[in-house]
């Protein structure tokens, strides 16, 4: 690989990796906010308003981080991968534009109403704004994952006039891996947001034991996670079967199965040795690999060697996949334990609060590991069977890329540190953070609000 390709990939990976953390949180957090807002509306309990006010600020900050890094992305498609646009632009361009037009404007505009409009608009308008933001974030995921899935499992296209164009948009969007990937990502976002909400609420409870808002919020978040965890195990399994059908090289690599075999073992730990095509220090469960991947004890799995040169690098996939699954299982354990410990209004013990606080950002690690699996797993293709990554790179010089990577990396590092400091600070201040301590029922609050205008 030449330098420009390595640098272009490093830079794009850095940006898209930084970017995805924030949508992964905000997609589901938007639905949490809607639930908090409706809970306040129905019960009039001020604890829900405190929760809403705290989390809408964290949402706004996360959304802003996603917006600014997303703007960078829209530029980099053209600058880093110019031949991506000239060869499959007729498919990628419209899908990206649909995301901006249908989802992005909706979120950005109604977030303003959600944040600042509570005293200015009737309750139903405010709740509608919250619904539209939640709908917008999910719609955003729909378009982006449609395009991403099409890059993995392209269908519905033809070659025409020297480029790839859509023959049937329905097939382009609802390509074979799309439903699985979309479901997997939406549930991943649900888990990410649940652990951030539970973790920061635990953090608040460690500071202020018995806080009404944090207690309720934590309980809701761990219950949601307890449901989503097993759902994700099921969806992930289905997604894996789909990948085995359409991208067998990815599965072989992430399981480090070098040679085609029946009754393949499941390798729990190993150091894959790409040069000698074997696994060192392997700990294996016999037959479990075939059982999980094909749901048959003696199911055949194609090995890496059968794909020749066209297979992704093994080590990063093998490791990233185990990180993702490991965190997923830990999440199931943590959320079930937490749900049990907080049953019928019991106060969460401190060891549990510390554990949840420690797992606050575990979703991010799992999401990044998962995206490494799926994106590195598509290599050497940018669009499976249609365009190789090395053919899509542009002629931006290594020096320009190097300079801009440094600039981005420093900016992102500073942004991330500031972000983490601020949200933990906000969570610690918790209830005090809200400008006008809410004690009134929504109806009276609104009257007071409009009188103040």
């Amino acid at each position, binding site marked *: 690989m030449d330098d420009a390709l390595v640098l272009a990939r490093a830079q794009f990976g850095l940006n898209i990796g930084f970017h995805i953390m924030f949508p992964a949180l905000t997609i589901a957090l938007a639905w949490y906010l809607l639930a908090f807002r409706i809970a306040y509306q129905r019960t009039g309990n001020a604890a829900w308003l405190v929760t809403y006010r705290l989390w809408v600020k964290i949402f*706004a*900050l996360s*959304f*802003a*981080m996603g*917006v*600014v*890094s997303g*703007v*960078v992305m829209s*530029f980099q*498609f*053209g*600058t880093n991968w*110019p031949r991506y*646009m*000239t060869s499959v*632009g*007729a*498919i990628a*361009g*419209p899908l*990206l*534009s*649909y995301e*901006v*037009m*249908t989802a*992005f*404007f*909706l979120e*950005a*505009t109604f*977030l*303003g*109403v959600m*944040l*600042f*409009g509570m005293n*200015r*608009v009737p309750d139903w308008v405010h709740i509608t704004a919250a619904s539209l933001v939640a709908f917008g974030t999910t719609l955003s995921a729909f378009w982006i994952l449609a395009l991403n899935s099409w890059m993995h499992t392209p269908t519905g296209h033809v070659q*025409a006039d020297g*480029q790839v*164009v*859509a*023959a049937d*948009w329905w097939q382009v969007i609802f390509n074979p891996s799309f439903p699985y990937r979309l479901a997997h990502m939406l549930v991943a976002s649900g888990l990410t947001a649940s652990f951030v909400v539970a973790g920061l609420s635990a953090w608040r409870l460690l500071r202020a034991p018995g806080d009404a808002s944090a207690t309720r919020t934590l309980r809701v978040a761990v219950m949601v996670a307890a449901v989503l965890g097993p759902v994700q195990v099921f969806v992930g399994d289905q997604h894996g079967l789909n990948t085995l059908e359409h991208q067998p090289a990815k599965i072989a690599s992430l399981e480090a199965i070098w040679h085609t075999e029946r009754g393949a073992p499941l390798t729990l730990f190993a150091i894959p040795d790409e040069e000698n095509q074997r696994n060192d220090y392997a700990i294996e469960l016999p037959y479990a690999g075939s059982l999980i991947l094909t749901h048959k004890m003696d199911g055949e799995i194609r090995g890496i060697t059968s794909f020749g040169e066209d297979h992704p690098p093994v080590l990063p996939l093998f490791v990233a996949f185990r990180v993702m699954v490991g965190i997923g299982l830990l999440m199931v354990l943590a959320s079930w334990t937490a749900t049990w410990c907080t049953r019928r209004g019991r106060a969460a013990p401190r060891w549990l609060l510390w554990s949840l606080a420690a797992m606050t950002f575990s979703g991010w690690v799992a999401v990044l590991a998962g995206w490494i699996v799926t994106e590195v797993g598509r290599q050497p293709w940018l669009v499976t069977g249609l365009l190789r990554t090395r053919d899509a790179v*542009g*002629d*931006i010089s290594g020096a*320009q890329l190097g*300079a801009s990577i440094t*600039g*981005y990396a420093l*900016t992102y590092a500073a*942004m991330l540190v*500031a972000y983490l400091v*601020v949200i933990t*600070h906000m969570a610690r201040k918790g209830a005090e953070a809200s*400008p006008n301590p809410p004690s009134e029922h929504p109806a009276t609050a609104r009257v007071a609000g409009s009188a103040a205008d």
Partner: protein
Amino acid sequence: MDLALVFLALMGISVLLYVVLDGYDLGVGMLMPAASTEQQSVMVASIGPFWDANQTWLVLGVGLLLAAFPKAHGVVLGALYLPAVAMLVGLMLRGVAFELRVKAQGWHRDLWNGLFWLGSFMASFFQGVMLGRYVTGFENGFGFYFFAVLVGASLCGGYVLLGATWLIYKTEGELQRKAIAWARWGLLWVGLGVALVSLGTPMVSATVREKWFDFPRTLGLMLLPAATVAVAGWLWLETAAVKRGETRREARPFMAAAIIFALAFAGLAYSLFPYLVIDRITLWEAAAHPTAQRFLLVGAAIVLPFIFAYTLLAYRIFRGKARAGQYE
């Protein structure tokens, strides 16, 4: 119907809306150091509910370039790579600083205020540099770079004008009086900038020169600069009226500033048409495949009216004067 023309128009509208809308909040950002702490809080409140959505017009503009003219997207953004990176770093700094300054105290707050200013300034300046490089067809050489820097400085002036006139509309009292003075300085600055670009562009490009200095067409075209001067004069008079206390005219300086931008934009569009990259790529050469255009048009036709409607709704909800701490 020529869909390439339709998308060119849509892209033009997005870019113009971006420049006017994000222009005022970038301008307010650049003016922050000139105000007291209390006034800064009002200034932030005046842009708080809008800036996220304002910035989205840039993404739409770039998105339409990408989707409707993919062959130009790579060329244009590749040639503008470094100023675009600097502009994006500026936008990131200010976006994050805007959210974080509210939550910070003491010297932290000063730091985020400083970064908010720096980010606003970087974003504005490098957008101008990108414009300067773009209209000269990315030619290299000291003269061209110098020209780009001058355009960068002028665009800062333009955004200061938009920001100051926005503040005239959204604030009152001492801050409004300050904003009137800022608007007048911004107007002078912008006059200089528009003159510079208007004279500079024909000098560097023969294509542009022929379009403007072709008798008798020139006479008709001179209406454009004449109208710009007239609107600038009107803006000045309106600020004087607001100064005298005629509150019902407070929105007009901003409208006048927006019209100046629209006129300058029309002039540029006339200069460049039908090129997306001057003298090199026309819009038809860069246009996406018809299958992509048709699919995109369906979406745009359905969605854009809604976007306009709810943008207006948001501005209606947050109408009236901004108050300190209102959005913090």
